[in-house]
């Protein structure tokens, strides 16, 4: 086994996903198969190869430090389920 049901449960919790027992079983099996497949790569000699950080062979995409107009508060909040004044309103966050 490449991954345990407990690990799947942990990752789901971190992602705030609620999985049923059954789903956990299913995903554990599926993820295990995926990991086993990807593990084939371990058979290759990768010494001296820089880890790939990006699929596109490109580097240094920059923008200059110039202000572009923002979209405005109403656009910013257009999809907000709840708002007060110019704020998004969310359930109380306890500090």
């Amino acid at each position, binding site marked *: 086994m490449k991954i345990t049901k407990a690990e799947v449960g942990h990752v789901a919790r971190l992602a705030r996903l609620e999985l049923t027992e059954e789903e956990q079983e299913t995903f554990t099996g599926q993820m295990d198969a995926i990991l086993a497949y990807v593990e084939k790569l371990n058979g290759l000699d990768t010494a001296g190869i820089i880890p790939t950080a990006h699929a596109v062979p490109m580097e240094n995409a920059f*923008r200059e*430090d*110039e202000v572009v107009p923002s979209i405005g508060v109403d656009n910013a909040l257009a999809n907000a389920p709840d708002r*007060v004044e110019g704020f998004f*309103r*969310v359930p109380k*966050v306890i500090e």
Partner: protein
Amino acid sequence: MQYQAVIGLEVHVQLLTNTKIFCGCSTKFGASPNSQTCPVCLGMPGALPVLNKKVVEYAIRAGLATNCSIAQRSVFARKNYFYPDLPKGYQISQFELPICVNGHLDIEVDGKVKRIGITRIHMEEDAGKLVHGDVPGLGQGSGVDLNRACTPLLEVVSEPDIRSADEAVAYLKKLHQIVVYLGICDGNMEEGSFRCDANVSVMPVGSDKFGTRTETKNVNSFRFVKQAIEHEIERQIEVIEEGGRIVQETRLFDPNTGTTRSMRGKEEAHDYRYFPDPDLVPLVISADWVEDARLSLPELPEAKRARYLAELGLTAYDAEVLTASRELAEYFEACTALYPQAKSVANWVMGELTRALNEDGKGIADSRVTPQLLVDLLELIDKGTISGKIAKTVFDEMYKTGKAPAAIVAEKGLVQVSDTGEIERIIDQIMAANAGQVEEFRGGKEKVFGFFVGQVMRASKGKANPALVNEILLKKLKG
């Protein structure tokens, strides 16, 4: 048992760019909530971040000024966690390949120089701001303002080389001075432009095994850093002495009580699952780029102080005061470029000018007394046009009005009287009016001399050349 504290600091430096790190929204402080946002910093699906080149330039400067190596290749990573001030559900940061590594700063505490290692400096975006309670209508909710989201930060991580609160403060002050000198941060701690998290642990003296550490968050003044660290050291020692164990946790400093307290249990949240951000391509920095940055660095305070001692012959104290801020140092240097007697300039800048500015709560940038005006004043003294004492009167007027000192002297009739005939005439009058004191002097009571000097200066409204007054008066009194 005796304990030794072990401290490492993480400092967040907000960069002085016009725009955010991955989008063109303004970073101006104090705008109305969510008015400086766009799909990128709101975390809208499909919006793509593009790196602000200036952030990279500033990071390179910071790295060079703190003796770091600049990584030829660095990569942005996603730090995953959920919090309402973080719209994407991850923060774009750097993890395995930060832009700067292996630096150090030398600090001085109690006359001893100590080297504090800098593990790394990386670039990242700030989160938004949460408000609780102080907005009508929020009720039991919290408000989210994403203006600050995506503001560029550098995180400067020190090695656990710091052993006391005083060392921590010395390190922070030095780092603060450097980033402000570099012009990459405004250094405003109250507004959060320079904030510090302190990792503190204690171990028995002589041990080489660090204790469990706690992280105290967002301490926003040098004084609070000292208090927070001292309190945390004491607290940990107390827990251990009572047979307890230190729990690895995040703590919050409370400036009202000077103590720290445990924050939300976020053990699980520490599982950040970093991975390279597929939205951003790797950053490759050429040797030429680093070299250009090195050449464009301003002279840093440490180098300035050394130069002031060696070349200008100032005292260590003068050099320290004059380099405290880049503006003050540049003002001083603008003066010495026009007028080479550095010590006189230093005396006036640190004396009259600083006093006047402090009284008004102003900075050197607000001063009406330009370097040229101050130098003009010093030259008037050198030429004997005015005395050093009158110069202070002229200075006050110049400070208030920004008028040229020569104009003030002419306008107010402050030209020093160096005409010996005129001075003799005044002295004769005074001696005639104070025959008794003349007798006393001649009878051996030499203290009366001061009385005569005072009278002559008063009669001349302070304008008589003091050296000439002394000379002529002495001659005449001795008869």
